[in-house]
Structure formats: structure tokens, C-alpha cells
């Protein structure tokens, strides 16, 4: 750790990188579906409540903990947690979640991202245009290879695009924080926003197909999303859906913000930067995400289509409905390319952030050079992505998403907040948050971070425990033919978390106590 730490090149650089991590496929696909199914405009009331009580406080907590840990030369959760509570040598093991969570998401996210790249390519080359809706379903099944009844799914084009996507991801990670991640996000995020605005304008000026009933236009589509159903506010499920959406959209709880903010200096602002990144994500999600998929599907397929909840699945809307819409308008190949390329950019700015906690862990705690750390990560990622590629139709993706993308990050977020507010101390954390700040955070957030957010997160966990966890653990809804595959991936996940735990043990085995970088003379 004696070598000089990497740093962000500019304030805007880290803001765009954190925003890029948060702006993902879910902004354009998941949010509009969730809003439309949970009260329309009324959904925004619990959404904003959850944003203020869970999302924003957690985001500030992570920026604070990450920058603090970075001052001790740590950029991943084990080291950051240990630097926050140095009296307890077991605390670092809780940080395993901050490496495990993003890695497990990476195991399927890169594959999904590669679909976007592939569909952008097929749109541009005119191969994504069929006479009937069945043609689109068959094309998707052919691409995924799930039309075969055999043990394996996967197809040659699917594997090729996956490899291309993985190599691009690893190349960006290889070039480091400033030369890779920051440079990509500085270009990709503004490009994504410009393209999304252009596409949203095109969608909002779409003409309904001939013979469509009156009112089946883009304004009607916006109405489908925004007309409030205030009775939905009385349903707990709507509030939980809003909390879940806010939680997952901001990339909190998974260790990514911890890692990114660790490359800041103590004199750098985090209060304003965090809020700026969050507002960028909200603009992408609510304003842009809400103006593309649902209005387009409403204009072309009508209200009846969207009222069928099966058709509101975010995946079906994005990969099956949208190509049909673009095939029916002038320059459809271009618009289709634009749509899937926007998704690809949203995906890659997220996936590179998922890789960074592991790479930083190898660099910081094992003194590896970045090229070596990226090579090790790349080999592990390539191997562990294979189940998602080859056993997609066997429930593997849902399993990875549940354990990596849901359980571990909610638990990790609850732990982070308790560690920061109760162990590290809310007063100390508050001072740390405001060190170098360009914006005072309202004092009410001190109360929210200490009491309200942890309580809500624990309540969410208890609710999940009591309503759905047992069914998931006992694989109640898993078809019997998929049980061996689901069990197999669970074994892989157990092996992964044990491996990371052993690596944490090895890294700290003969290590003297940490001291702040300023004292080591390596903080410049």
C-alpha cells in the first residue's frame, strides 16, 4: 500500500461515475413498469418518501464511509469497515458482502448487457424486423438458445457478444479509475442522456397505427403511467415496491459507492456530489425512463395490451415490444439501434462499477498491480459468468439476482447504516460528511440516518423473511427439472462467499494495525 493511490481527475468525474453506476437497465425498464402497476402518478408519493428516508440517507452514509476508509488506503468494504471500527478485528468479515454482492450481480449483468449490444447490432443491420409478434419471440429464444429442450442453453452469437462485452468491461477496468472508468463515464453518460432525450422526443411524437381508437396517443401513454390511483396508497405492497425501486436504483448497499468514494481526498466534497449523482439518476429514471417504454407501447399496442400485467414485464417491454414498435416507423433500424445502445451504455457504466470493489480489494489488500488484479478478476468473472450464459432457462439468472441483487445488498445496507450511525457514531459521521462540503445537509437527516433508515431497512428484511424467504429457500416455485441447476448455483454462491472470506483472513493475517495514509506518507 506504499504506492500512491489512484484519484479521480475531477469532481464531475466521480459524480458521473457514481451516476453511471446508478443509471442502469432498471431506470429504463423496471421503473416505468413498477410505476404503472402500482398506482401510476400516486406511486411517486411513496417513491419520494422512500427516496428521502432510505435512498438519500444511505447514499450519503456510503459516500462518508467510503471516503473515510480511503484515507486508510482501503477501497473495498472489508478494509473500510475495519478502519471504521478498529477495536473489533471481526468487523472486516461483514465487508465480504461488499465484494460478494457486486460480483454476483456481475455474473449475470454482463450477459444481459451483451444482449443490448447484440440487439443494437441486429437493429442497425436490419435483422430485427419480423412480420408477426411471434417472430420477435422466436428471435429472442434463438439468440438466448433457450428454444432447445436440452440441458444447455446459449448460442454462438450470444457467446460472441458476451465475450465482446466482457472484454470491453475488463479493458475499461484495466485502465483504472481516472484513465478507464472516469474517461468512459465522462463520454458515455452525456451521450446516453442526449440519445435518451432524442428518443423520448421521437416516442412522444409517434402517430398511432391506422384504425387505433381515439386517445391512443403518446399523451394517453403518459396518462397510463401518471394518472394517479390514490387508493393504491393504502396498499403496503405499493409502498414496498416504491422502497425497493428507490433502493435498487441508487446502487446503494452493494459496496460500489464505498469503493468509488474511497478515491476521494478528505478535503473533497461528498454531500453535494452525492446529491448531484442521485439527482442525475432520478432524471434518467423518472423523466427519461418514464417517457419512452410505456408511452411507446401504449401508442402501438393500446391500453388493453398494457392492462395485461404479463405484458408489463420490464424485459418483455424492452426486448420484445420495443423492436416491434420501431419496425413500424420510418428509420426504425436507427431508432431500434438507439434504444438498445442507450441500454448498453446504461449497462456498461453500471457493470464497470460492479467490478471495481473486487479489483480494488486485490490491489489494496494483496498489493497487486492493477493489470494483475484485473487479470485475476477477469479469469474469475469469465468462469463464473458461464452458468448465466449456459443455464439461463434453468432459473439460474433469477437465483443470482435474488441472492446477489436483493438479499445481500439489503442486509449490507442495514449493516452499513448501523456501523456508521451507532458504532462509528452519528456525530463523528456527521462531521465526516461535512468535511470539505459545499452544501450543509439538513440536520433532520442526522435523525433519519440514525433511527429511521435502519428501522425501515430492518422492517423490509423482516417482511421479506416472513413472506417470501422460506418459499425461496425451499425452492417452492422452482420446477422440479430445474432444481439440480438451482442447487448447483447455490453451491457456487456458497463457495464464492467462503472464498472471499478466506481471502479477507489471508489479507489481514500478519498485518499490523492500519494507520491513516497521511501518516504513511502515501496519501498524495
Amino acid at each position, binding site marked *: 500500500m506504499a504506492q500512491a493511490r489512484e484519484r479521480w481527475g475531477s469532481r464531475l468525474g466521480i459524480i458521473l461515475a457514481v451516476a453511471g453506476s446508478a443509471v442502469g437497465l432498471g431506470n429504463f425498464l423496471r421503473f416505468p413498469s413498477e410505476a404503472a402497476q402500482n398506482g401510476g402518478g400516486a406511486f411517486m408519493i411513496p417513491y419520494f418518501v422512500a427516496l428521502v428516508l432510505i435512498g438519500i440517507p444511505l447514499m450519503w452514509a456510503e459516500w462518508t464511509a467510503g471516503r473515510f476508509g480511503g484515507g486508510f488506503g482501503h477501497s473495498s468494504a472489508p478494509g473500510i469497515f475495519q478502519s471504521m471500527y478498529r477495536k473489533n478485528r471481526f468487523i472486516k468479515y461483514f465487508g465480504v458482502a461488499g465484494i460478494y454482492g457486486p460480483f454476483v450481480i456481475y455474473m449475470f449483468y454482463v450477459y444481459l448487457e451483451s444482449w443490448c449490444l447484440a440487439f443494437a447490432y441486429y437493429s442497425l443491420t436490419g435483422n430485427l424486423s419480423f412480420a408477426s409478434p411471434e417472430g420477435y419471440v422466436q428471435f429472442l429464444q434463438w439468440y438466448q438458445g433457450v428454444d432447445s429442450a436440452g440441458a444447455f442453453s446459449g448460442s454462438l452469437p450470444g457467446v460472441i457478444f458476451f465475450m465482446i462485452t466482457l472484454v470491453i468491461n475488463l479493458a475499461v477496468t484495466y485502465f483504472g479509475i481516472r484513465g478507464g472508468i472516469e474517461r468512459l463515464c465522462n463520454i458515455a453518460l452525456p451521450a446516453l442522456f442526449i440519445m435518451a432525450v432524442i428518443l423520448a422526443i421521437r416516442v412522444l411524437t409517434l402517430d398511432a397505427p391506422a384504425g387505433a381508437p381515439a386517445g391512443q396517443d403518446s399523451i394517453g401513454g403518459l396518462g397510463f403511467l401518471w*394518472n394517479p390511483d390514490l387508493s393504491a396508497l393504502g396498499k403496503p405492497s405499493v409502498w414496498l415496491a416504491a422502497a425497493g425501486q428507490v433502493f435498487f436504483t441508487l446502487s446503494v448497499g452493494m459496496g460500489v459507492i464505498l469503493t468509488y468514494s474511497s478515491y476521494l481526498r478528505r*478535503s473533497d466534497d461528498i454531500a*453535494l456530489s452525492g446529491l448531484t449523482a442521485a*439527482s442525475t439518476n*432520478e432524471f434518467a429514471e*423518472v*423523466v427519461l425512463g418514464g417517457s419512452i417504454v410505456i408511452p411507446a407501447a401504449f401508442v402501438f399496442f393500446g391500453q388493453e395490451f398494457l392492462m395485461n400485467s404479463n405484458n408489463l414485464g420490464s424485459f418483455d417491454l424492452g426486448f420484445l415490444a420495443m423492436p416491434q414498435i420501431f419496425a413500424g416507423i420510418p428509420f426504425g433500424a436507427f431508432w431500434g439501434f438507439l434504444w438498445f445502445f442507450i441500454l448498453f451504455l446504461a449497462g456498461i457504466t453500471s457493470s464497470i462499477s460492479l467490478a471495481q470493489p473486487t479489483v480494488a480489494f486485490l490491489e489494496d489488500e494483496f498489493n497487486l498491480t492493477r493489470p494483475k488484479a484485473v487479470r485475476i478478476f477477469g479469469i474469475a468473472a469469465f468462469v463464473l459468468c458461464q452458468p448465466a450464459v449456459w443455464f439461463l432457462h434453468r432459473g439460474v439468472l433469477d437465483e443470482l439476482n435474488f441472492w446477489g441483487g436483493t438479499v445481500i445488498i439489503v442486509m449490507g445496507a442495514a449493516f452499513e447504516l448501523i456501523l456508521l450511525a451507532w458504532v462509528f457514531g452519528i456525530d463523528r459521521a456527521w462531521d465526516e460528511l461535512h468535511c470539505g462540503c459545499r452544501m450543509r445537509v439538513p440536520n433532520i437527516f442526522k435523525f433519519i440516518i440514525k433511527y429511521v433508515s435502519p428501522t425501515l431497512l430492518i422492517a423490509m428484511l423482516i417482511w421479506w423473511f416472513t413472506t417470501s424467504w422460506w418459499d425461496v429457500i425451499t425452492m417452492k416455485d422452482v420446477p422440479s427439472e430445474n432444481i439440480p441447476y438451482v442447487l448447483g448455483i447455490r453451491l457456487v454462491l456458497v463457495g464464492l462467499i467462503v472464498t472471499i472470506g478466506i481471502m479477507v483472513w489471508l489479507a489481514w493475517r500478519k498485518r499490523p494495525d492500519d494507520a491513516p495514509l497521511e501518516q504513511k506518507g502515501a496519501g498524495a
Partner: protein
Amino acid sequence: MTSGGWIFMLITWGIIISLLVFTYARTITYNEEDCDDDSST
């Protein structure tokens, strides 16, 4: 779209766009002021 829909949409967009403009305006100002300070650390 009903008037309720318009109200919810415009208020939501207004809040988010205002927050976006406010935060970026302050961030960009900060960057300009902080250039010298950054290079000296």
C-alpha cells in the same frame, strides 16, 4: 391524461429537474473555484 396525471407528472418533473439544475450549478461553480486548491494537495 387526466388533470391529476398532469399535476403529478409536472410536479415530479419539476422537483427532479430543479434538483438537477441546482446541484449541477453548484458543482460546476465548485469545480472552477477548486482547481488551484486541488493541485496544491
